[in-house]
């Protein structure tokens, strides 16, 4: 049984937002898609099966489709092109640090493959475990863990070289 929209949002909005933001070029796009994800979710509550996973994993499945739809509409632009913008901070020092950091994130994540970026978004954005990432990517939990490990190792190398 799924909670009502308010409770669903309260509990899982951050995960959906971080996932979509990790996969889309701007915060405005992430807002549009996150809003669409919850609209789709409320239309499709009957598709949720607790035996198949948590509400979060179900919502992330919807988010993956919504993000895929967004990129299909946007084609032929390069899906590796941009990493999301930072949320503006009121503190000028924090803001400049943030912009600097996000700029670096963009540059680094652009070096990853689509699958690697997806793994990062699912683990760090949606905060899913290896088993749930495996279900989404059609691989075993061990393979999902290995994928994340290899991507993080790759990023470590990039950051160290940079």
């Amino acid at each position, binding site marked *: 049984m799924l909670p009502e*929209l*308010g409770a669903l*949002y309260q509990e899982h*909005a*951050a995960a959906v*937002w*971080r996932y979509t*933001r*990790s996969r889309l070029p701007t*915060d405005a796009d992430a*807002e549009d898609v*996150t*809003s669409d994800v*919850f*609209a*789709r*979710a*409320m*239309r*499709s*509550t*009957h*598709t*949720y*099966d607790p035996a*198949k*996973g*948590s509400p979060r*994993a*179900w*919502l*992330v*499945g*919807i988010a993956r*489709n919504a993000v895929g739809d967004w990129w299909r509409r946007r084609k032929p632009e390069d899906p590796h092109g941009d990493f999301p913008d930072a*949320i503006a901070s009121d503190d000028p020092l924090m803001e400049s640090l943030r912009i600097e*950091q*996000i700029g670096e*994130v963009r540059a680094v994540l652009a070096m990853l493959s689509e699958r690697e970026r997806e793994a*990062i*978004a699912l*683990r*760090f*954005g949606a*905060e899913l*475990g*290896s088993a*749930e990432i495996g279900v*989404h990517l059609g691989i*075993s939990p*061990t*393979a999902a*863990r*290995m994928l*994340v*490990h290899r991507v*993080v190792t790759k*990023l*470590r190398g990039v*950051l160290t070289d940079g």
Partner: protein
Amino acid sequence: MVDEFDPDEVAQAERLDGDISRALTGAVGTDTALTWLVASVRTDPPAALATRITVEHERRERARWRPAQLVAGLFALNLLSHGLGNMFVGEWVSRGLGEHYSPHAVREGGFALIAAGLAVGAGALRRSWLPVSVGAGVPLGLALGIYGLPEIGKFGQGAALHITQGLLAIVLGLSWWRARRYGNRPHDEGGA
């Protein structure tokens, strides 16, 4: 499916997985790459997003139930006019049908139709009351529609009224069913 990975690498991946889980709960670690990734990805959604989603949800809900509410309103007006007709022009109706006019029975029938019209109209005012509209209106409209069939060719106004009631009952039932079904419609979601 059998995964063939280097056991050492698997062990490292498992350790990293634990480190990631701890970092995501806010624990401060020494792995700068991990700290950097967590900090850059973990931002909170804009405050306005919750309002936007709620407003959008309400808008879609209103649009979903609007056809059924509109039909309930039309059906209510039909039943109210039928009831008032019984009360004020019952004799004319009886004459048209070639029946004996019984004011007592016709007026009581009028009261009942007005009450039924108010029940059917409830769903037009508030969508949570639509089950009342459907429960009262669909069986009554179908019965009136069938009951009025013999009036075809005999009393045109009466036949038109009853056929309209039958059709409104069918449309009300279908639009309510469609709105309910739309709310639970299979979509293109994947997920767990």
